[in-house]
């Protein structure tokens, strides 16, 4: 391994470990100011007021009208929403609104960590297959034409093969193909 690659490896290890270790302090945090939504009285109050508002509007229409059908559906969806939030692990503030705990602790992982990791996975997938397609295009005869007029069958095969991108990226990083060497990167004269 060349020294430049070693430096970069150390940098990445430091970067990734910082993600984990800086999370360690708030992960232990207690949420004294928050109560589970199920036990929160203001959360319950919010449910009652939103239902009441809809029911007051419902009174304005005859039972078999389109508007009343819509409003009854709306009431039902409000009820299911509040029921779902109170059945989940969500914590509510004093004002009765649910809060997302983004500290990385496991009992609240489905609020931020799992969707966040999923987001990174999907965006990484998109970036990885895009890069792969550009690499494919650069090897063809008409480089620019292949970037403007997409070769759809090739693009689809590349897209479908992208789901293992974290492993592929790590493999390329270890073999030194992921990053361009410093000599290939143009730097303005200084």
């Amino acid at each position, binding site marked *: 391994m060349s020294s430049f690659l070693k430096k970069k490896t150390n940098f990445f290890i430091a970067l990734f470990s910082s993600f984990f270790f800086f999370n360690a302090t708030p992960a232990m945090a207690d949420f004294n100011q928050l109560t589970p939504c199920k036990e929160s009285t203001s959360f319950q109050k919010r449910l009652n007021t939103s239902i009441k508002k809809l029911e007051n509007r419902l009174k304005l229409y005859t039972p078999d009208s389109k508007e009343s059908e819509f409003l009854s559906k709306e009431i039902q*969806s409000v009820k299911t*929403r509040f029921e*779902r*939030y109170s059945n*989940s*692990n*969500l914590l509510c503030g004093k004002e009765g609104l*649910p809060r*997302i705990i983004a500290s990385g602790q496991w009992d609240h992982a*489905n*609020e931020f960590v*799992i*969707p966040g990791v*999923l987001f990174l996975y999907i965006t990484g997938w998109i970036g990885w297959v895009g890069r792969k397609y550009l690499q494919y295009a650069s090897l063809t005869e008409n480089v620019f034409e292949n*970037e*403007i*007029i*997409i*070769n*759809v069958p090739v693009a689809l095969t590349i897209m479908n093969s992208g789901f293992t991108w974290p492993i592929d990226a790590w493999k390329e990083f270890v073999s030194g193909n992921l990053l361009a060497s410093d000599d290939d990167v143009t730097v303005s004269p200084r």
Partner: protein
Amino acid sequence: MNDFLKYLSTAPVLITLWLSVTSGFIMFINFIYPDPLTFPAF
């Protein structure tokens, strides 16, 4: 037909089609499972 397929494969047309499909998919998910605040546990 070949020219038409080539037209469909140009980047602006392709991204319009692709993003329409993607946004439609997201709307569909939100229609059958509205108001998700946490990742659902199955």
